[in-house]
């Protein structure tokens, strides 16, 4: 099998892909095929993610040929990346790497077409930066697992058909060794999703309470006790997904601030001007670092800059949005809307400066705090020695909490 795949990827080049897209479009006219059907057909044609194996939405082709497909299929029905981010960015690569053939066949197609939405049940109130200390228990009963616990910061849980879930299956061994990775059925009895209100007023995330949730063993992903290793695949993919720079100079949150600056000369002061110029420069060098990082990834020499990009973006968004509130003076005393309601996205551009200011505070927490990212850079990139560890060889149940 691995040999077959390698052969295939050698034969699939840009021309072959273009030919394949042409043939696919000939069979499936986007103007007349309803979107769900069109996407299903696209998956079956191996044009979902070309680097996936044949039969699972791909062609076993090099990853960087995906852009050829996207260019050729521009204007055809597209995915709703917002709702599908966790499925596409985190669940799919994990299922591909650790799932059984049955699991891959079952889950990947509706995941990619968006017919089944996924969410992530990792973080807990007591396990944030130290995810491996999580306490949600999964206990085996015959061919099933009974899951009890509380998860938090789950976006899209109220839409989700499935979740990726890490739970503790053995509290008697050190924390990294006693976890198992599951696909959680979000329609199972005992799954309770509650919106979690944020400081912005709205609820982008949920708390998910799991009470006696029964999952058949064939929803387990990877070996029992191997959950940490499986989760690493998920998390690595998460960080790659987050660290994207705006590709346009002066774009992102900076753009909203500079637009106000240009439009409202009466708000300008020298202090604000000097600070804005510094932030403009910081945004631009960060954008260039992102451009360079993408070049490195494309050239096949992935650099460790990814964690740094997230660090830099969090800082920029926070500094810029803080500056904007101050710049507006009297208007900065106002807020657009405190209504408690669900929100599916982070709306940095449609909402007011107060929202941007508050929401940007989460940028240095979600998806790895800036503190954890600095640890990762220090240890994995710079090779600095780890701190003395006190939790390495202690059974999970004996850890101080």
């Amino acid at each position, binding site marked *: 099998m691995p040999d077959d795949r390698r052969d295939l990827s050698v034969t699939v080049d840009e021309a072959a892909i273009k030919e394949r897209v042409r043939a696919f479009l000939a069979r499936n006219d986007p103007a007349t095929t309803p979107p769900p059907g069109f996407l299903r057909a696209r998956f079956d044609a191996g044009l979902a993610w070309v680097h996936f194996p044949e039969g699972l939405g791909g062609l076993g082709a090099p990853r960087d040929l995906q852009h050829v497909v996207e260019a050729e299929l521009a204007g055809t029905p597209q995915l709703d990346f917002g709702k599908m981010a966790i499925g596409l960015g985190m669940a799919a690569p994990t299922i591909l790497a650790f799932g059984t053939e049955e699991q891959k066949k079952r889950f990947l197609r509706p995941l990619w077409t968006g017919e089944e939405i996924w969410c992530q049940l990792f*973080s807990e*109130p007591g*396990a*944030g*930066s*130290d995810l491996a*200390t999580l306490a949600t228990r999964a206990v085996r009963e015959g061919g099933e697992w009974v899951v009890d616990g509380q998860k*938090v*910061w789950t976006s899209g849980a109220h839409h989700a058909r499935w979740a990726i879930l890490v739970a503790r299956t053995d509290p008697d061994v050190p924390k990294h060794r006693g976890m198992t990775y599951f696909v959680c059925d979000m329609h199972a009895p005992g799954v309770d999703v509650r919106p*979690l*209100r*944020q*400081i912005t*007023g709205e609820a982008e995330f949920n708390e998910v309470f799991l009470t006696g949730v029964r999952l058949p063993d064939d929803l387990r992903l990877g070996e029992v006790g191997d959950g940490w290793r499986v989760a690493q695949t998920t998390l690595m993919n998460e960080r790659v997904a987050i660290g994207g720079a705006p590709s346009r100079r002066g774009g992102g949150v900076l753009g909203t601030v500079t637009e106000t600056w240009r439009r409202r000369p009466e708000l300008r*002061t*020298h*202090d*604000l001007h000097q600070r804005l110029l510094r932030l403009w420069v910081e945004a631009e060098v960060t954008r260039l670092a992102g451009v360079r990082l993408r070049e490195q990834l494309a050239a096949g020499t992935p650099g460790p800059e990814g964690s740094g990009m997230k660090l830099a973006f969090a800082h920029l968004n*926070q500094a810029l949005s*803080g500056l904007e*509130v*101050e710049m507006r*003076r*009297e208007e*900065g*005393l*106002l*807020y*657009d*809307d*405190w209504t*408690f309601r669900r929100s599916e996205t982070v709306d940095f551009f449609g909402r007011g400066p*107060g929202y941007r*200011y*508050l929401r940007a*505070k*989460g940028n*240095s*927490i*979600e998806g790895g*705090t*800036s*503190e954890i990212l*600095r640890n990762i850079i220090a240890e994995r990139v710079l090779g600095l020695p780890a*701190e003395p*560890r*006190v*939790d390495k060889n*202690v059974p999970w149940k004996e*850890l*101080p*909490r």
Partner: protein
Amino acid sequence: MTLLYSEVEEELRAAVRDLLADRCPPSAVLARVESASPYDADLWKALARDIGAAGLLIPEDLGGAGASAREAAVVLEELGRAVTPVPFLTSAVMATWALVDSGAGEARDLLAALATGETTAALAVSFATSPYALPSPTAGAVRAERGRLTGRVTAVAGAEVADVLIVPASGVLYAVDATDASVETATSLDLTRPVATVTFAGAPGRPVAADLAPLRAALELGAGLLASEQLGVAEWCLTTTLAYVKERHQFARPVGSFQALKHRLADLWMELVQARAAARNAADALAARADDETGGAAEAAMAVAVAQAWCGEVAVHAAEECLQLHGGIGMTWEHPLHLYMKRAKADEIALGTPSGHRDALARLAGLPAPLAP
């Protein structure tokens, strides 16, 4: 001059703190800010009655306590520490001081009513107004014509609980009954001190000062004492963060044992040490200024500008560190810290931004700007 707290001040602080601990825990504030009346009128009455807060700055012959800016500063530290939704700063400090500074007959009558706490007032100016840029007599937002006021003022703090509005109009300061104006609360960043739009449509006004000098004095006092409120906000943030990082464990250690956090908290603590000195210095200079009408004005102006330039940013920094070091829980509505962050950010703008106060220092300290090119 002393930057320490006197025994009387410490007693005042203890009394306020006890009352607030009892009546205004963070959970109560959180519940209140979404109610129809974000200001806590009962608590304000209790502060006025039990502590004498409403009349603190009012001369004794008018029924007040005749205390100084130093004592008011201590009250504000505690009100900041509890983000208490009461109109102490807006009524008992700013509106009151405009009337005290005026000394006109009508002003004195009003002060007597304010001293008991039965009547509450507010200055009808934007809360973002700095002491350095008063509305000019001709370009002011409100016009007065034969005692009738017409116009609109946005972002007024404390207006919805005010019985009387003190309004600059056509270069004169008027008192207007709130029932003669329209007050519309705006959706505000600071949930615990919302601002309002106040509209006057031919409202009858009683002159309480012949010019706007008392307004300037009130804004300066407000700015100087706001530094003590900011210190209180910052202190709650630091204290709460310290308690949390000592208790919260990750990697089987209290997160407060991680050196990167320890160093950040040490730096933040030093900022608060400096903030306390600056806030006390402003309160002390303002108290001395009131005693000494001739000298002291320049000293007080500088002390106010220094305190505002420093404490506004310290409070924001403390709130931001508080949120970051709380991790996810800090992003939830349920945890009270967002009330402090919103107050800190709004306070940074209130009564002049830090950079506005630094610009004032360029003049006061003799550090002139670059020559025009």
